[in-house]
């Protein structure tokens, strides 16, 4: 499945190349590199080159105007005592580790309800999928800003029941929650993956379980969950990687400053402020590498942990 397993199987896969194809190897090289040329140029000029450059910049003091000045580990030691940075890490971790499980749980739940050949399934699927297409837009972030504002839709509805709601996005204790809710709202994409995964489970397993008198709950835990675990894992890895980089929603809802009192100051938002607000490019580069390492570490943890709970049928 997918880029992720493809990556791990690269080393295992045996080349299917026949002797003839191998003979043609030399001839293909030229054609291949011509076809790959745009991608190779991009890889070097737009991806790997800038990556190495930003690694270098992370050890310098650089403000775009003067040439970068080597400062060794200075940027990283500054990070250790940067309270706003620590706070932004906390905000980001909360967002990722509350938002992602919640979103996936809702996605799985709705996928389970939708799975059993329900009438009108295409319609429901569209309705649930639409928000995940729109959720990344500035327009929806604007809508969220209104809905969870002091006089917003949520409080108007609460007022109908005589409840005076707080200003959700202007209160530091609820602002992040509103943005997490926006993330949960976009559960449509993982839901569609779950739906596809559910369809891959052979019906005979359920039939056999029914014959043996298994309850619905037993079927869920003993058949659905193990069979679906590779898909859950796949969703988890992708959503965690993606959520660490979340930016637009917090930026728009907070008006670009991560407020109130830094309660929605995502790591990426702080990085943007440092790099493109204060032009502290060295520090921003160092932060970017910290982000890369964090994402790498959590992806690795995910892979290691997966050995204990992901079940592969084949």
């Amino acid at each position, binding site marked *: 499945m997918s880029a992720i397993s493809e990556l791990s199987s690269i080393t295992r896969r045996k080349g299917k190349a026949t002797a003839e194809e191998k003979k043609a190897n030399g001839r293909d090289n030229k054609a291949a590199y011509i*076809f790959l040329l745009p991608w190779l140029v991009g890889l070097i000029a737009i991806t790997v080159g800038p990556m190495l450059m930003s690694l270098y910049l992370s050890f310098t003091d650089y403000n775009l105007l003067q040439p970068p000045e080597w400062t060794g580990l200075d940027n990283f030691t500054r990070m250790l005592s940067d309270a706003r940075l620590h706070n932004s890490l906390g905000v980001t971790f909360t967002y990722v580790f509350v938002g992602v499980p919640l979103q996936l749980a809702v996605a799985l739940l709705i996928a389970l309800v939708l799975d*059993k050949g329900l009438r009108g399934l295409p319609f429901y699927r569209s309705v*649930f999928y639409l928000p995940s297409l729109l959720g990344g*837009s500035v327009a929806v972030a604007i*809508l969220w800003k209104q809905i969870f504002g002091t006089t917003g839709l949520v409080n108007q509805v609460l007022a109908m029941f005589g409840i005076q709601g707080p200003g959700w996005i202007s209160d530091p204790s609820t602002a992040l929650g509103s943005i997490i809710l926006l993330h949960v709202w976009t559960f449509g*994409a993982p839901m*569609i993956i779950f739906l*596809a995964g559910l369809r891959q489970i052979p019906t005979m397993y359920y039939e056999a379980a029914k014959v043996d008198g298994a309850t619905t709950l037993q079927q869920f835990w003993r058949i659905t969950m193990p069979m679906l675990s590779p898909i859950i894992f796949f969703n988890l890895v992708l959503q965690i990687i993606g959520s660490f980089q979340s930016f637009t929603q917090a930026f728009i809802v907070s008006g670009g400053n991560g407020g109130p009192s830094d309660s929605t100051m995502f790591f990426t938002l702080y990085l943007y402020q440092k790099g493109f607000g204060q032009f502290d490019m060295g520090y921003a580069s160092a932060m970017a590498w910290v982000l890369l390492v964090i994402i790498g570490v959590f992806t690795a943890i995910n892979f290691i942990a997966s050995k204990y709970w992901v079940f592969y049928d084949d």
Partner: protein
Amino acid sequence: MTTKLETLPTPEKKSAGAGKPTNRRKPKIRESRGTLAFSRAQRTKALMKHGILILAGGLMIYPLLWMVVSSLRPNELIFREPGLWLNSLEMSNYTSGWSALTHPFGHYMINSAIVVIGSILGNLISCSMAAYAFARLQFTAKKLLFGIMLLTIMLPFHVVIVPQYILFSQIGWVNTFWPLIVPKLLATEAFFVFLMVQFIRGIPRELDEAARIDGAGHPRIFLRVILPLMVPALATTTIFTFIWTWNDFFGALIYLTDPDMFTVPVALRAFVDSQSATSWGSLFAMSIVSLLPVFLVFLFGQRFLIKGIATTGIK
């Protein structure tokens, strides 16, 4: 970025499903058997499910509907009318929103359209070329390069943004559309390369062989055999590129600071920042205008989005 990763699984579907395409219809069979056995219990269950789904779906879509309705209301009602009932159609939000910024809103939509079209062409050409090489050709360091390509799918944009910005600003490309389009021409959205590789792998090799025997070289096989057969993958790429580029905020925020060059997301952001508390109506109106193209693409491209993504897709 987030959206990108959210929708990333496309190839997953395809590869996961490719092995057992026959299972697709099974759930229906399951249901019909159930109806025979205990039809009444089953029917109540189905009814309950519909109830839950309608409730959940309504809750999901309500904010969007409410935004549409509110954009057609006088401004002051936005703060005290949570319902969806419209007494009259108020188009003034649209006319005032359209001309609220330096340029008419259409200007920003044209800017966005230029970036979107450039990005789509870029992705279609560069990604399909790279995908052909990875899927069909044998060459030195293929596995290594393929692995690197997969890794770049997961690479956070932030790691390269600072040097990229320095690079493009030195070429004098800040406040042009080039920094948003050129990376696509160079296949940096590796996700699509992977999607297309997966698709090409599913095209029978006999077709290439036949063309080769007829004397066709790789360019010809690519253009005449593979490309026409991978139209569904190209359609999926087009649709996703459209939506992601149309919604792209971060790139535009960094590279476009001149209001002349604003794309829709940064224009909307400028609108939010400048608005007084009373102009939510026109802000909503322009938000809806900005979502309309995405919604239309969703409506007409659903086949490729959902089916292409979800089921074994694409085939």
